[in-house]
């Protein structure tokens, strides 16, 4: 009989789940775990400079690699600082496993130093959460946490680990390693698939709307195969960018408030809309009463709660995206093929070409559209684009052509400013061979810029391109359009100098003052062998357009 401590058992259990990297910050209530980490040579711990950074990094890591990202903090303020990052992961269905220290069980509820009721605080923002009362529960709690985070619809899980459990000893059996791809999958109903096949085969003007569920199901190849088989154009949600290569002739780009006009018009005109792995967010649908008004809607999702929640659905299919798409493809292949009326595809193709957004501006300060164009010239198909939140995010989502799933990482549901930089750090740790570029606004970047210390100290060479307009740009845009240009509390003034900020941390820093300087300086940044910040002053008056006002109709965007 060999007794081990709870802290040692935690690492044995994490290794059995295949964990190699942890983002975190130690503190009083988790010192025993960090003491065990001292002897742990098979796990890389990345010391972030704020717990929110650790949570976003774990989230970015998970989205880039398709496995749970892990973050770890102390109790009280350490744990509460995780919450924004955990909710962010919850809203975007990202598997993050968060572990925080806690007061010893006998002190719970006494308002002890750095005690926070994390079980209650984490409850509404996680897929599930645990408190470990006894050391014997620890191995199974860790197994359940990882299993829960990855099975069905992914999501974050929190483990509250009291200090007495960390130090107590027991003879524990750690469950054997399992592979994540053994996650439970759900098969769709045969009858629903048959009906879906009939609806799609008989559609004159079908459109497919793909989301993050397609990425988590690993169903991109099936999505493209179905689109080609049907001759159906594909639009995506923000989370679904990369599910179909965006240079594919059937790709329409993103749908919604800041979506491509062609995508919004196609959805408005289609007669059958197949939504797969999407939640029909209000940012995508705008006014649901006018969303896809002529279409029968088929909705495939692994989470039954999503079906019928936001839009009326004519055919619900509860199931795994990949399995559902495979079944639909089989069903269509078994039927007699009739040629798709090419009129719809011709119309789509024409709309796509005629309504393609303009990016070739030469003005100084640089127009953001041109900045994206220059960045895309430098990046390759394997580069991972991460975004902050706001105008920079929507320019990236609207203009970037993403070719592969997991190569566009953005905070969708929660819209968390400060997400991009630490998430980029996580993505780079997960995929060190890929170039990782964070498309940032100056406002967002400053919300977690302390992680410059983390990336420099740990040699995590991500590049942040700061779209610097010295404004909280998206709020300013709303004030300009909907509040008679009454710009209230949106000017960020003249500081900081982002080049000096980067250099202060020992990172590479430079400024691209003209559009023609962006590509060469970005190349230099990527080759610098250091984390880098490229400051790109942009036109402060530029809005993200087109824009469908909140609650408006998708086919009635603001264009100028």
């Amino acid at each position, binding site marked *: 009989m060999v007794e081990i401590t709870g802290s040692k058992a935690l690492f044995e259990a994490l290794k059995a789940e295949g964990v190699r990297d942890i983002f975190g910050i130690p503190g009083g209530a988790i010192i025993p775990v960090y003491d065990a980490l001292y002897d742990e040579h098979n796990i890389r711990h990345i010391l972030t400079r704020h717990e929110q950074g650790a949570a976003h990094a774990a989230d970015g890591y998970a989205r880039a690699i398709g496995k749970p990202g892990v973050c770890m903090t102390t109790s009280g303020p350490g744990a509460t600082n995780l919450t924004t990052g955990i909710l962010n992961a919850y809203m975007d269905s990202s598997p993050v496993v968060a572990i925080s220290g806690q007061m010893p069980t006998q002190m719970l509820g006494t308002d002890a130093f750095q005690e926070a009721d994390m079980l209650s605080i984490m409850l*509404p923002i996680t897929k599930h959460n645990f408190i470990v009362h006894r050391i014997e529960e620890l191995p199974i709690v860790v197994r359940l946490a990882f299993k829960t985070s990855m099975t069905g619809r992914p999501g974050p899980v929190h483990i509250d680990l009291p200090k007495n459990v960390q130090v107590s000893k027991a003879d524990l059996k750690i469950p054997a390693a399992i592979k994540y791809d053994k996650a439970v999958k759900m098969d769709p109903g045969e009858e629903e698939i048959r009906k879906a096949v009939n609806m799609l085969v008989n559609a004159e003007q079908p459109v497919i709307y793909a989301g993050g569920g397609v990425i988590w199901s690993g169903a991109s190849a099936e999505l493209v195969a179905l689109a080609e088989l049907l001759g159906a154009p594909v639009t995506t949600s923000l989370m679904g960018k990369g599910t179909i290569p965006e240079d594919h002739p059937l790709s329409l780009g993103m749908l919604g408030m800041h979506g491509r006009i062609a995508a919004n018009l196609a959805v408005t005109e289609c007669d059958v809309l197949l939504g797969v792995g999407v939640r029909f967010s209000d940012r995508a649908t705008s006014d649901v009463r006018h969303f896809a008004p002529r279409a029968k809607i088929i909705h495939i999702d692994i989470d*039954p*709660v999503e079906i*019928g929640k936001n839009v009326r659905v004519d055919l619900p299919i509860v199931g795994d995206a990949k399995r559902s798409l495979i079944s639909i493809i089989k069903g269509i292949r078994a039927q007699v093929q009739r040629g798709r009326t090419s009129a719809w595809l011709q119309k789509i193709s024409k709309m796509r070409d005629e309504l393609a957004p303009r990016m070739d501006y030469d003005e100084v300060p640089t127009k953001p559209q041109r900045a994206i164009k220059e960045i895309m010239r430098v990046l390759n198909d394997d580069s991972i684009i991460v975004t902050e939140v706001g105008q920079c995010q929507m320019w990236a989502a609207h203009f970037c052509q993403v070719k592969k799933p997991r190569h566009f990482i953005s905070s969708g549901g929660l819209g968390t400013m400060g997400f991009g930089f630490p998430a980029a750090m996580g993505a780079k740790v997960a995929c060190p061979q890929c170039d990782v570029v964070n498309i940032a606004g100056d406002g967002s970047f400053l919300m977690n810029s302390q992680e410059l210390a983390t990336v420099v100290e740990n040699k995590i060479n991500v590049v942040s391109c700061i779209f610097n307009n010295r404004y909280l740009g998206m709020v300013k845009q709303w004030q300009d359009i909907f509040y008679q240009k009454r710009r209230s509390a949106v000017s960020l003034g003249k500081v900081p100098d982002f080049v000096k900020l980067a250099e202060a941390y020992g990172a590479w820093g430079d400024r691209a003052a003209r559009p023609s300087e962006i590509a060469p300086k970005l190349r230099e940044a990527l080759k610098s062998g250091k984390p880098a910040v490229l400051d790109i002053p942009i036109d402060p008056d530029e809005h993200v357009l087109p824009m469908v006002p909140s609650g408006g109709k998708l086919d009635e965007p603001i264009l100028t």
Partner: protein
Amino acid sequence: MMRISRDFHRRQINLDSITVGIEPTGLARIILTFKADDRMAEFMRKVLVRSEPIIDVEVIEPENSIVREVALLKTKKLDVGQLWKFIQLVERAGGKVLENKDNILIAELSGDHDEIEKVIMELGPEILKEVARSGQVLISRETT
């Protein structure tokens, strides 16, 4: 319990009652009663099914089930007329007087929600001092 009540609170649905009992299998059976249209009831069913610790959710329509609630009624100090009114009303409703100390009575009453509500209304605040109610328990009539 916190998980469940929060799911309702967040969607602005008022739970009329929550009762919990442990089944012979060791699992907890939680009975929730609330008012909602069919669409919202189905939505809440799916929300509850999704919650990790919940094993199964059954929607039981009142007409296909037996519904009971227990109430304990405590009176003020009653005069003779009030005392007889109380005993009569309780016994007519199938209830039982459990105690009488100095004309302060405690009685138990079981039945469906509306029956109990009716008795409480008829007795009124002149007679009743305190009422403790169990919340509704119900079981489906289905045999399969």
